[in-house]
């Protein structure tokens, strides 16, 4: 239940990182379509929050719910903030920003999974 969701977000992040990395190599700035890709990841994180909430309500919450929610909320905020920050830059560096943000979310998901299964 939990692992597939984490893997889903990590896979989406890897795809967005690859897309942004390709734009870096092509010396291109972030385009709106990539932000829609980020929005899909946001949707998946919201889904994780719903699942985490349902699991907590049914009594099978994580051993450290405060940390779990800390990571969930942080993961949710990274991409929107990075998207605004990246879009103000009209050079290849905006693509680097998006790639770094996606890698960060993937890293947070890995930590999230550790906390969730601890």
């Amino acid at each position: 239940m939990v692992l597939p969701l984490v893997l889903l977000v990590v896979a989406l992040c890897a795809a967005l990182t690859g897309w942004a990395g390709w734009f870096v190599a092509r010396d291109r700035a972030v385009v709106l379509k990539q932000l829609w890709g980020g929005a899909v990841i946001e949707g998946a994180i919201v889904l994780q929050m719903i699942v985490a909430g349902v699991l907590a309500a049914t009594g099978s919450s994580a051993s450290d719910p405060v940390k779990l929610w800390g990571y969930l909320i942080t993961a949710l905020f990274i991409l929107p903030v990075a998207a605004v920050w990246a879009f103000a830059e009209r050079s290849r560096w905006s693509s680097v920003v998006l790639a770094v943000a996606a890698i960060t979310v993937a890293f947070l998901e890995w930590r999230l999974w550790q906390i969730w299964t601890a």
Partner: protein
Amino acid sequence: MTHPENPETAPDPATRVPPSGGPDVPDVPDAQGAHDAPRRTGSGFGRVLVLVYGIFAISATARASIQLLRDWHEAPVAYGLSALAAVVYIVATIALARGSATSRTVAWTAVTVELVGVLAVGAWSMLDPAAFPKPTVWSDFGIGYGFVPLVLPVVGLTWLWRTRPPQTSTTEPKDRA
């Protein structure tokens, strides 16, 4: 962090994407003025740097909040230093993003404190592990974060140096108008 190969900030006009969306870009000096005007610390490669600083500011703050509010008794020294690191990252992020003359001074100070902090805490945590029953961002030179905390201040100081405005250059005498 990953692509310091070309820190030139002036975007090549030929590769610019039409500004069809997003917030307006502040005027970038044209090719003629780009080399004379002081470059902003928050654009070009600096935009990536500010993002990484921002991520560390957010994560260090979140981590320090939980540690200080809930687990203070477990490792007061380590958690106090986590809070210090969080403040330093917040200040550095804002200062680098703003990039005004004052912000530049603040950024120099914050990033220097960060470098001293990661070196001092890194050495301290290795020499006296008993003082750090729980890790901080800076313990063992930031090993828990892939040594990014160790590399980040070096990159930050290099970036501040490379984007320094000509009038604050310390190697050449000031040319008074």
